[in-house]
């Protein structure tokens, strides 16, 4: 095993979903941080940084959803989900939709002549952060990172 072997990384025995999920979470939370900072400081550079974070977060939700659904189909043979697995799936899809929606609202407002965000956007970002946090918590619980050593 070599830590920088691409072949070994791609063919790793662990699920790729648990690796890729960190990208949209980190990018989205950073984006929200920049957006709140831009709102308070009125600095457009921070708003731009938030926008680009949201773009990459929205794009990175695609492989995350794909690998999650593939893991469900291949490892569990697409069986009817229940309990934590079902909650994680539903909340994951809703969280991804919220991340894409936040990006879309920013995209629309940047294209508008006045370039002003709707006042509800920050509230929407907070709701999305809460959903991402709950989804991540359930994902962490499922993956077993919380088990006592």
């Amino acid at each position: 095993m070599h830590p920088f072997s691409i072949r070994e990384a791609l063919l790793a025995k662990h699920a790729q979903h648990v690796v890729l999920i960190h990208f949209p979470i980190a990018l989205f939370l950073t984006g929200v941080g920049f957006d709140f900072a831009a709102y308070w400081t009125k600095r457009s550079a921070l708003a731009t940084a938030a926008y680009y974070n949201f773009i990459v977060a929205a794009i990175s939700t695609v492989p995350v959803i794909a690998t999650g659904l593939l893991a469900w189909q291949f490892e569990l043979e697409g069986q009817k989900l229940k309990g934590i697995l079902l909650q994680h799936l539903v909340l994951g899809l809703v969280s991804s939709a919220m991340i894409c929606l936040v990006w879309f609202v920013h995209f629309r407002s940047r294209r508008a002549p006045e370039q002003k965000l709707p006042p509800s956007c920050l509230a929407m970002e907070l709701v999305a952060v809460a959903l991402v946090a709950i989804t991540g918590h359930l994902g962490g619980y499922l993956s077993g990172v919380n088990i006592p050593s």
Partner: protein
Amino acid sequence: MRRLKMQRSKTSRILRTMILGAAAIPSLVLANGALRPRSVTAAQEKPAAITVTIDNFSFAPMQLEIKAGTEVTWINKDDVPHTVVSDDHKLFKSRALDTDEKFSFTFKDPGTYEYFCSVHPKMTGKIVVK
């Protein structure tokens, strides 16, 4: 005199029957005792069912040695769903087992069987069938 003789022979017949009956009881008990161990042996010959507990993200016991024909039952005692999948993905593969759900498989052929949880591939176990 004749009547007295007849009465005596009747009494001795009754006594004989009683003695034979008394002798038959212990022999019946012994016979029963002799049969019982045989039935225990038969029960012992039949491979017992074995349970593997899934708890705290591990299989317990992690390694098992069993006789061919033994049925192994896995029971999930974790709050998180787990699966039981043979390393070749073909021999046995359970559904996602929720808390207290079970999965059983009978190992008919001798050999070494390694398995894992497909949700948590670090969870592994081994069964040696003799």
